[in-house]
């Protein structure tokens, strides 16, 4: 097993009359275990062209109904450039230049085919993103010429 941590700090000195600050750290474990760390990771960098919704992280049997964690950041610097992140044909939210997100992803296969796939679409300009998937398994494809 591996030990991977995800730390988060949120702070503002002026959104309320008093400063707010919160911090937390989670260790990324496999679902259904007390303390067995996830030991597989994919890390990607991609340029997403505009005009089409793409599958970013595809659902699979190896991932389903367990603990997977997804991190996505939009590396564009223009504030107006953005991508939308969708699951199950619904937009969760938009990542503008510099924005990031971190979610657990259970890869729920109980719905229709491809409904758990995480999709992305770029707007305004091609958007450079980096994304990581910390996961419980991967469905490997048998070589066509094996």
């Amino acid at each position, binding site marked *: 097993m591996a030990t991977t941590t995800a*730390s988060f700090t949120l702070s503002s000195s002026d*959104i309320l009359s008093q400063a707010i600050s919160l911090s937390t750290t989670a260790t990324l474990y496999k*679902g*259904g275990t007390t303390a067995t760390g996830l030991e597989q*990771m994919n890390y990607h960098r991609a340029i997403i062209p505009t005009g089409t919704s793409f599958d970013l992280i595809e659902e699979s049997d190896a991932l389903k109904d367990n603990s997977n964690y997804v991190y996505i950041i939009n590396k564009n610097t223009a504030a107006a450039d953005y991508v939308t992140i969708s*699951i199950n044909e619904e937009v*969760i939210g938009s990542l503008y230049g510099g924005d990031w997100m971190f979610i657990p992803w259970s890869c*729920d296969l109980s719905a229709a085919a491809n409904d758990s796939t995480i999709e992305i679409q770029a707007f305004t300009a091609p958007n450079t993103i980096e994304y990581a998937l910390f996961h419980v398994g991967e469905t490997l494809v048998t070589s066509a010429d094996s």
Partner: protein
Amino acid sequence: MATTTATITLSSGDIADNRFSVSNTSTLTNVGTDTGMTKTTGLSRLELSAITKIVLFGAGGSTDSTPGTGTGLAINKGRFYIKNLNDRGDGTKFVKLMMDDFEIGRLYGGDWAFYPWDGGSGSDLEVKPSSTTDTTLEYIMFYE
């Protein structure tokens, strides 16, 4: 405008051959601008003890801004943080993080999430515990 920052650090000494570490900070701004968000729901704490779906924020900014009933806040283009404050325990209990009845992911004890939420028709932001064990959540929304 206000200045609110969110920082993530992902770190592991042994998930790869070399140490892996990624850290980034984003400033929470209004849509398509450098203007800082000025609205927040404030930090909320919620205790659940039933396997029942709860709407934390209703889509479209019309209703269900508070668990169960809601009185309506116009929340669009939000930035949402949530954490399951329970201990991990035996690792079998979690809270489903959902949108419009669909399971996005599972927050086990100690897990957290931070992500943008655009709202819009049918995109209710919901949670549902997997057991009747008392579960405590904290969450906050920043929005335009």
